[in-house]
């Protein structure tokens, strides 16, 4: 090997060595930081069947990016051509070198700089010529993606992105190196073929076009060194930039398929935040992107977590936690859990004292159904009154747990990061609800329902009031009145994305109003803006999000907006654009008869006989 060859391969080899060293240190530390239980989970998931499904997913998502394909086609082509193209370039390049040298294992630089090392050799045989064309085709494929990436910096709207993500300096440096790699390769190969002949349909053609005197052949060597430097430079900056996702997506997918969650797990959180590719799709899904003052979007939040400076409190708290970003994320980063980790780390040790809730003498009368309205239902008495009317109509043995003295489910405490206080209050609320020994717990608040399902572990079923109403309809006990008011239903975030309750409220509404059959997509619902998870936004900003959401939801001829969450009802009513009603209120109004259901059924049977 000549001294020039050493200079040529040095930047590339050094960069690769640094990359591998940093990666192995990082991955080892993150793996060690995993909870012991999660480590076990990961170990158990390594069965043949699950590994096979993980490998399929790695191929589909890391290389082909199929989740982006389903959202934005042009953006998909850009990402896929770079990822899959580069993968092909490496693999096909290696196969080409194996065919030529006959050695299956060779030094990495032998295949990367194959055209440089084999430039004085004669190309014999159709298959070797075929490799030249194939490599050119792949290079063209990558260059087309690179052109799109460049164009995206100028006009991101043509890619379906409302707002262009603003990258930080490390990402810009890494991007610059990445952008240089493939054009440098193109120039190096073209000059190579200009001086030494050969080449595929693209580099060979351009090489033949150039008529350069032979004494300028050092230009080709310089281009090859440029290629090596851009590769090595990219490898060195990769672990500190967003391009870390290229490699970290693989362990992220393995952890995801082993059902390891980022919540309260430092190791998994590190893998997740480095698997984020900063593609900017979540910026588009976030409803706060339209507000100028908001900077808490998951895109910026996760990027700040990767940096040494960490996340500011403002950024951490300024989020509605509606879940739209994690739903749209092509890498499926659990942004909600990661944000909760940070909030808990910050606020968990704040003082609290809920001893005043300890009232052992106080008992709720025994009943079959326990109805828990929650704090927000206290502010919309119409929902409570309607539920009472409905229970009376069906002659249910019920009790309103928090009719006079309300008590919080604790979710607002949890969302602000005060986990200890949350578990303290949960103790009292759970005790009070169970003191009536119910067979069924019904709540009209999706926020409470999420908490009950996630942490309360009640011994009896807990359902939302729309599910109860739907069960009444499916039993044939439906109210006779159906109005012709054109209504649009809004999916509350907690009820939809968190709990997956979509069909029940729609079925109820179809029986009592004219539900405008909007082509809705599950998990694409809009947040009302009033979410209790956000501690930063002021009143005006919340209202502007609500206005924006209403405009997107309704049609020109819509007369009513129905929802199933008291907080959404309050928030949507504030801009005063359209009347907002809860499903329970509409149902209670549809009960045109005043006598209970059973008496009515008996009378009908009597008349028919």
């Amino acid at each position, binding site marked *: 090997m000549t001294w020039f060859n050493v200079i040529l391969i040095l930047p590339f080899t050094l960069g690769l060595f640094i990359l591998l060293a940093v990666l192995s240190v990082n991955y080892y530390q993150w793996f060690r930081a995993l909870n012991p239980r999660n480590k076990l989970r990961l170990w158990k998931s390594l069965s043949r069947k699950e590994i096979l499904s993980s490998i399929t997913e790695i191929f589909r998502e890391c290389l082909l990016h199929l989740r982006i394909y389903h959202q934005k086609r042009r953006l998909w082509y850009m990402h896929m051509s770079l990822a899959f193209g580069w993968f092909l370039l490496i693999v096909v390049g290696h196969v080409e070198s194996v065919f030529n040298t006959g050695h299956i294992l060779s030094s990495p630089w032998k295949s990367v700089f194959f055209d440089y090392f084999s430039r004085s050799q004669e190309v014999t045989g159709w298959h070797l010529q075929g490799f030249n064309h194939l490599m050119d085709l792949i290079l063209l494929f990558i260059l087309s993606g690179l052109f799109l990436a460049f164009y995206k910096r100028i006009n991101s709207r043509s890619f379906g992105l409302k707002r262009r993500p603003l990258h930080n300096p490390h990402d810009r440096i890494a991007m610059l190196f990445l952008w240089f790699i493939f054009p440098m390769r193109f120039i190096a190969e073209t000059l190579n073929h200009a001086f030494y002949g050969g080449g595929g349909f693209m580099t060979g053609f351009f090489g033949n076009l150039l008529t350069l005197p032979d004494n300028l052949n050092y230009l080709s060597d310089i281009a090859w060194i440029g290629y090596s430097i851009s590769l090595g430079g990219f490898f060195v900056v990769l672990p500190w930039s967003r391009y870390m996702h290229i490699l970290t997506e693989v362990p992220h997918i393995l952890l995801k398929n082993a059902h390891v969650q980022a919540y309260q797990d430092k190791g998994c959180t590190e893998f997740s935040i480095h698997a984020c590719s900063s593609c900017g799709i979540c910026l588009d899904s976030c409803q706060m992107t339209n507000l100028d003052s908001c900077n808490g979007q998951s895109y910026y939040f996760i990027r700040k977590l990767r940096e040494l400076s960490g996340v500011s409190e403002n950024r951490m708290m300024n989020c509605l936690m509606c879940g739209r970003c994690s739903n749209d994320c092509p890498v499926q980063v659990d942004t909600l859990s990661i944000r909760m980790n940070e909030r808990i780390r910050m606020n968990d040790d704040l*003082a609290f*004292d809920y001893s*005043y809730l300890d009232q052992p003498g106080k008992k709720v009368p025994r009943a079959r159904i326990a109805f828990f309205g929650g*704090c927000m239902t206290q502010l919309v008495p119409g929902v409570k009154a309607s539920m009472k009317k409905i229970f009376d109509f069906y002659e249910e043995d019920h009790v309103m747990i928090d009719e006079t003295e309300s008590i919080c489910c604790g979710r*607002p405490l949890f969302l602000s990061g005060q986990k200890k206080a949350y578990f303290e209050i949960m103790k009292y609320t759970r005790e009070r609800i169970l003191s009536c020994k119910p067979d069924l717990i019904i709540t009209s608040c999706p926020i409470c329902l999420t908490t009950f399902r996630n942490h309360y572990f009640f011994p009896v079923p807990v359902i939302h009031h729309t599910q109860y109403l739907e069960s009444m309809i499916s039993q044939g006990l439906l109210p006779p009145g159906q109005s012709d008011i054109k209504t649009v239903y809004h999916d509350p975030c907690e009820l939809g994305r968190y709990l997956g309750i979509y069909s029940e409220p729609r079925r109820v509404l179809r029986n009592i109003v004219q539900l405008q059959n909007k082509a809705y997509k599950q998990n694409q619902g809009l947040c009302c803006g009033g979410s209790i998870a956000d501690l930063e936004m002021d009143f005006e900003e919340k209202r502007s999000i609500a206005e924006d959401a209403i405009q997107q939801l309704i049609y020109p001829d819509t007369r009513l907006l129905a929802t199933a969450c008291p907080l959404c009802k309050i928030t949507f009513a504030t801009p005063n654009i359209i009347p907002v009603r809860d499903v329970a209120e509409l149902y209670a109004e549809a009960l045109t008869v005043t006598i209970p259901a059973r008496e009515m059924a008996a009378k009908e049977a009597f008349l028919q006989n």
Partner: protein
Amino acid sequence: MPDFGFGIHDDLMIDHDRLSLAYEAVLEEVPSISGCISCGSCSGTCVSSFQSGAGFRKLVMLLKNGSYEQLQQALDYCQFCGKCSLVCPRGINTRRAILEMRKQFKKQGDDMV
């Protein structure tokens, strides 16, 4: 002495021209707190006020007056439900203000009391 349901506290010396240090610290983070007109809507709707007697209006008053000892006690009762912020006619971000107050006490600990 018969129990009237309320007590008379010791004499206070309050200088309304000089705000308490804690109030200024909270004001810096939550400027909207300056809009409080002590209307009492928050206390009227408060979940814990019914049982513990401490509503957001009272917290602001104690904070302004610098009665840190009572404030610290009253702060601990808050359940964070956010009903106060929904009824506030001045649009004050009450939950953020209460979180900030709690943090002030955690940060400065007993020095403040």
